[in-house]
């Protein structure tokens, strides 16, 4: 996710924004995948699934669609 998020960055995330508005393109989200918590940016949407990608394209292979139920929250602050 570099350059926006560097390794070791502290992120404040919240699920509250997504109770108010649906996840949108360019939102940086936290989601569950194979037992891990992943941070990525939304780059597209289809029905109730979201396509995500890392900002550092060369460091991010294509990632499958993420369902709404797997999204934990949105990054609201980076420290």
């Amino acid at each position, binding site marked *: 996710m570099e350059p926006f998020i560097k390794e070791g960055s502290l992120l404040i995330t919240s699920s509250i924004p997504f109770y108010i508005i649906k996840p949108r393109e360019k939102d940086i989200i936290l989601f569950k995948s194979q037992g891990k*918590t*992943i941070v990525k940016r939304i780059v597209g949407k289809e029905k109730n699934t979201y396509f995500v990608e*890392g900002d550092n394209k*060369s*460091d991010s292979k294509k990632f499958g669609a993420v369902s709404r139920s797997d999204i934990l929250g949105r990054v609201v602050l980076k420290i």
Partner: protein
Amino acid sequence: MNLASVLNFFQVKIAYAHCDIPCGIYDPHNAQLAAHTIIRMTQLLGEVKPVRQAQGKREDETKAEHDIARITHVKEEHASLLENELTTLQNDYFKEEHIKEYPSLPELFKNASRLGAKARQGIDTDSAQKLLLVVQDIAEIFFKTKGVIPVRVKSVYPTGGEIVTYK
């Protein structure tokens, strides 16, 4: 109240930015294979029978165009494959400590990228051969970082040359 005590107040978890499943399986073999294929396709492009020598018949001309299109397509495909394989090694495998131990690594990747572009842009056997050598240098470093002894063995491909593997 300092930052640490504030953080203790909240639930702090680790989030990963790497989407890949951390399988730990890396190998420079595919990159070498792609480099050999680029050389071979470049050689084959040079061997396509010119239309003039083929007596200028329309069917010969069509065949030559067809062969050139197919060979060029395979050359492009393997240049992309090579680029992807090297990107994976550069970004996912090699870490800061590897670069400290082998400071030539960034330059090797830069050269590979430059030579890959040159091999794509033209029918340039020289660049394709140099690309293979750079990829082999990267392969050697890769195996050293894995704690095994790299060896260069004769390839069994029509391109000749070598393949870097390990003992």
